[in-house]
């Protein structure tokens, strides 16, 4: 199951990076949320383009994908399939695109 989904934008400076959207599918303490957001964005943003889209973070998997300057990041459980999560992200982007026009 998906634990959370974050949309993070990469700005020119590291300070300006911003969480655009966060959806938590599990009750999580605010403190834990902040920590996850901080750690995960740091991990994801540090990666270069040709690297793979998966990470391990603590005991979860993180799947992310970059669309222009926006990173879609999903936290999933060990037992989940990475590629299908990637497809979910892509499908989500397709739906957004279809619904709101060119995003």
């Amino acid at each position, binding site marked *: 199951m998906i634990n959370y989904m974050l949309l993070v934008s990469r700005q020119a400076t590291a300070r300006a990076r911003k969480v655009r959207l966060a959806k938590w599918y599990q009750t999580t303490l605010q403190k834990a949320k902040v920590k996850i957001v901080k750690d995960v964005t740091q991990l994801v943003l540090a990666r270069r383009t040709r*690297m*793979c889209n*998966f990470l391990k973070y*603590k005991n979860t998997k993180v799947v992310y994908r970059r669309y222009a300057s926006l990173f879609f990041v999903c936290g999933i459980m*060990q037992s989940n399939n*990475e*590629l*299908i999560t990637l*497809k979910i992200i892509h499908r989500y982007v397709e739906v957004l695109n279809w619904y709101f026009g060119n995003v």
Partner: protein
Amino acid sequence: MATNMRGLTQFIADIRGARVRELEEKRINKEMANIRKRFKDGNLDGYQKKKYVAKVIFTYILGYKVDVGHMEAVNLISSSKYSEKQIGYLAVTLLMHENSDFLRLVVNSIRKDLNDNNEIHNCLALHAIANVGSQEMAEALAEDVHRLLISPTSETFVRKKAALTLLRLYRKHPDVIPAQEWALRIVSIMDNPDLGVVLCVTSLILALAQDHLDAFTICYQKAVDRLNRLVVEHEYAATYSYYKVPIPWLQVKLLRLLQYYPPSDDPTLQVMLQEVLQTIMNNCNEPSRNVQHNNAQHAVLFEAINLAIHLDTNSPLVNTAAVLLARFISSKETNVRYLGLDTMAHLAARTDNLSAIKNHQGTIILSLRDKDISVRRRALDLLYSMCDVDNSELIVGELLRYLKVADYGLREEMVLKIAVLTEKYAGTYKWYVDTILELLSAAGDHVGEEVWYRVVQIVTNTEDLQAYAAKVVFEYLKSPSSHESLVKVGGYILGEYGHLIANEAGYSPIEQFQVLHSKSQFCMAPTRAMLLSTYIKWVNVFPEIKPQLVNVFERYRHVLDVDLQQRACEFYAIAQRPDEDELLQNVCEEIPPFPPRESALINRLNKKQIHTNGTLERQPSRMVRKSADTNGQGSTSNGDISQDIASSLAGLDITSSPVAMSPSTELSATLIAKGIPRLTAGANVDRWYEKLLYTAEGVLYEDVQIQVGIKSRYQGPLGQVAVYIGNKMSAPLTSFTTSLHTEEGDALSASFVKIAPSTLAPRTQIQQVVQVECKRVFRAAPVLVVSFLAGSHQTIAVRLPIVVTKFLEGVKLGAADFFERWKLIGGPPREAQSIFPISLDATGHIDQARQKLVVSGYGFQVLEGVDPNPTNVVGAGIVHTAADGKVGCLLRLEPNREAKLSRITIRSTSEDVASEAQKLLQKPLTAEAPSATAEKRTL
């Protein structure tokens, strides 16, 4: 809708136009004051309420605290207009936390909307339940949500939402959902023609089945069937093809679901599943240029490979998979390389046959130098999993070489893994010591204490190694900079075994002392304390350097560290005693070998790796540790060491509690017992069954909806039973499912040749063939379970008339032969005998024809002229079993007309057959209550 609310648009425009924060706050405060006043005055119509609540929501989203509008939101929900309802629900889900008192007020409105005929209202209500998901709502409304899910009148999109809402409720409050009770009904929706519904329901089942494997067993069959239809028969609507892959999400979920269950032993399902997996793997042989297509296809493929590994690691499918994986790990796509390595590690951890993977060892080692750290990590995991006695030297050597250039984040894990592998697969102790010492000198900072404890333990427990270890460690210490751990090992080993090499050139006591002592100044206090212990040991064995050693003690007597000072004082006092005193010798006795113990290293690694669900650690059967006898822990000269190890061991029990993802095989035993629904009861059901015991065809079950008939044929230990199931109604039976349950799987196998179609058209009949094989003598007849949807979900469970006597074949014997065998078998326990009442026919005579009919119906050859008494019936036969061979069986039936009693005696070479056959035969021959007898006579 927003266009209608001009006030709202204006409000938003004002706020967006505010130049500074103060202005924005001012505008909001003004608006809130206005709203508060309006609400207080009351008498607002729906439109106004909607508008104000929308403003409140907007303010809330901006991050301001709002304290009004809750009651109005609750009122809006009960409005009949969609736009008002929608804003009401939005406000409820946003403004109220799940324990809010206001929620109590909305439960009833939500229930009303769930029961509404308008699907849109159903959906709004479902959304609200899923978003809030409070305990109270779950308790009050789960039943209604379930009803929406199963109701045949629900629209597909309502069903989808209902399934997901239930899933959400189950995840939050698992005890509120009666999963066992709803299991069959929910599983039957997997047959829904709409794939979207199937996808949602499968998500739900995926969560439910994990906790209730038994109750959901039937979903295994459904999943295989659905996969077959999607993958092999291409039966899906074009809209569900995603980049040319049929609904990959569903495929992945189904494949995952199948991994929760132990492999099925039904040959039909096995064959179908094989075909599905084979097809999925073949599909990937045509590489495509489209990344999206590849991703979707690979998502399914990796899940399929995982399933294949789960089913049987030695199957040809897994070989195919290994070839595919090998291609993947040298793929250009990073994602594919990553997953290829990950899956290969999973395979390596499960399989006994590593040769397929070993072929690609070179490529895997190269992956350690991949650009991407994630890939490097997976390569490391894989190398760890695939290491065994044959390739350990190579892999460990490679890891050691890589360690020196590896990322810092990776080093600690690598060091631990190298240490474990070295210990587990050490061919020679020499190699072990060499490797570990190199490890200590290469990456000392990352080496945990446990690693050098193990070296000390192993050296202490292995006598041949001691001199060698002392030499090697001495050489390492000679290098200008040595890591502290190395100094510790050196201190310990030279102190204990330095005297073994002292006579060789270059290893004299004074040289040993100088090398070791030169490191002392760079070390921490605990290490120095260890060195002091080393020196006192040397005082005992190397009298020639005693002055230097005593000198050291003397100096340390004045240091500030309490431990060091105390040691120095004590050692000084001991050293100063006269030579003939035995105290020193006694104190410095050689350390005895450590008692065997679990390796602290592996524990440590397990603790670290707990999140990988143990995939890295081999199965216990493969964990043959060569050095098990040398594992040890005990008191050493430093008391704190043993404490540390003890505490590292104490953490061990965590390892037993990882989230169990893979289904445990032990369940299969209890599964059978629980998986059978309660047998359908009824006088007729028993009568039909009993009649079929000695006839080959007839009715097995019948009610107003369906009829089940049987035709059977047996040959040796094999049998073929055709089950005819007819739909007597004028409506189709949907989600039609048949399954078989055998209680003694190793004695009797029974399975359908193919899976039944999921729909049974009105007034039609289908034939399902069951293949039966009797392997051993068995007692319980298999249970046939038929379930279908006809208005409600119904299940019929009846025993199939497959009993041991069905495999009985008559034999013709002469009187002499018969009695010779009869005597040969002898009395109990190989004889079963009973006396039971019989009824006479209309003329007051024994119904001999019927008796013979029953006896021969059971498969016995009725032997004429064998028994001197003509009323007696004598029969003989052989039971064929596949595993236990043939079992002879003789029968003698002695009816007594006057007493209206009969005696039945069965002798068989197998006691089980004798008692089973006696019970089976007695039943139809026994006189029953008068009415039943009358009925029987007409048969």
